[in-house]
């Protein structure tokens, strides 16, 4: 088997062994979405208009929840140090690591979003657009969040700091992502927003693994 595929599968296996970590963001995602209709006027029209924003902010928070522990285990076990010292590309390892993080945290969110669409009375026929946007957006958010996690790797109680680093950088993704769904719900062409989102997707996947690797390296230098 291709060694990188093997690496990816091992990473998935590691995450799967800690199933609780996978389930919790999912439950969190559902609970947050469920709180909105309760805390405001649940008229269908208003809810439908707020639905893209709620789903996107909710997805971002659910991803954020898992960030602190993203590299923690590998750091404490000394696995990261081996990665940094090993001659194989750290960037590629990071890429696969984040990809597996996405598969266990965000893919379930995507699979569950049809439920949220029903709860928040978002037009069901636009579900496809919402999912395409969420796919592009959550991958990008995972990479940006992983950068925050890598920068604060050696710090204790880093989750507040990760929030301060991650959330401002993530705003463009949220703007384009939520608006692709808003445009679709208004029967307008959502493609401009999706193209912009895709541009950010490729830009992030191209640049950010390098930054994450650099951030991981500084923890083992000096």
């Amino acid at each position: 088997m291709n060694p990188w595929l093997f690496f990816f599968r091992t990473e998935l296996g590691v995450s799967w062994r800690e199933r609780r970590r996978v389930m919790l963001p999912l439950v969190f995602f559902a609970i947050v979405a469920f709180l909105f209709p309760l805390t405001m006027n649940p008229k269908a029209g208003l809810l439908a208009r707020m639905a893209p924003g709620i789903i996107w902010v909710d997805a971002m928070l659910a991803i954020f929840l898992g960030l602190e522990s993203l590299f923690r285990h590998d750091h404490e076990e000394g696995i990261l140090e081996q990665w940094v010292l090993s001659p194989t590309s750290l960037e590629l390892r990071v890429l696969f690591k984040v990809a597996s993080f996405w598969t266990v945290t965000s893919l379930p969110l995507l699979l569950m979003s049809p439920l949220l669409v029903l709860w928040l009375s978002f037009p069901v026929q636009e579900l496809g657009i919402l999912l395409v946007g969420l796919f592009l957006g959550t991958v990008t958010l995972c990479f940006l969040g992983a950068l925050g996690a890598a920068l604060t790797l050696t710090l204790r109680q880093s989750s507040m700091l990760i929030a301060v680093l991650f959330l401002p950088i993530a705003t463009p993704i949220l703007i384009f992502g939520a608006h692709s769904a808003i445009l679709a719900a208004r029967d307008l062409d959502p493609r401009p927003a999706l193209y912009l989102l895709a541009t950010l997707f490729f830009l992030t996947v191209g640049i950010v693994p390098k930054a994450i690797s650099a951030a991981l390296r500084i923890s083992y230098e000096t």
Partner: protein
Amino acid sequence: MTLKTFLHRLGSPPYFYQISKPWGRAFAWIGLGLILVGLYGGLWLAPPDYQQGNGFRIMYVHVPSAWMSLFVFMVIAVASFIGLVWRMRLADAVAAASAPLGAAFTAVALVTGSLWGKPMWGTYWVWDARLTSELILFFLYLGIITLNRSFEDQKTGDKAAAILALIGAIDVPIVHYSVDWWQTLHQGSSFKGLTSEIAPSMLWPLLVMMAGFMFYYAWLVLWRTRSEILLREMDREWAQRVVEP
């Protein structure tokens, strides 16, 4: 002394520490003079705007602060790049010294923009493209400052903050564009600061104020950089000699 040897010597912390003091003092006086002239021109000499009356005068503090908030971020990004690539300690110190100043300029731009908004829009906060991206810039500054000071080892903090600053430098234009795009989509009350060509009698105090703010920043950044260098070189003999009277 050629320019190259001058720059090379400037990179050495003890030399920088020595010569930055008289330069800083000169910048402080020039900055103060320019700001006083700019205030006199902006608050007294310039005629009221035909649309905004005297309310437009907030521009003379808002625009220079907003411009400085972006300029300082650029300085941090360039210094971070130099610090990461060439491992120049002076560059790390400049970046660390600039971040709090940039955050302060951003705060002034936000508050004055909001105070300008009240008479113009009738409310203190509108999700106007410029105010929104300024707010995100403020959070970015806070992130850089906190990250830089979170580590026990200052070198780690400098490098982590430098990586964040470089990603932030790519992000700032994207944020600005995305917020602009979002604005046009909702056709909100987009606020054009001054609609027509600005008259020379209104323009010159603005330019003088901007120059004054630049000198003020140059003074403070030299001052703060001296402290940051001391903190980074505290085991060195020269640093200990400097501290003793």
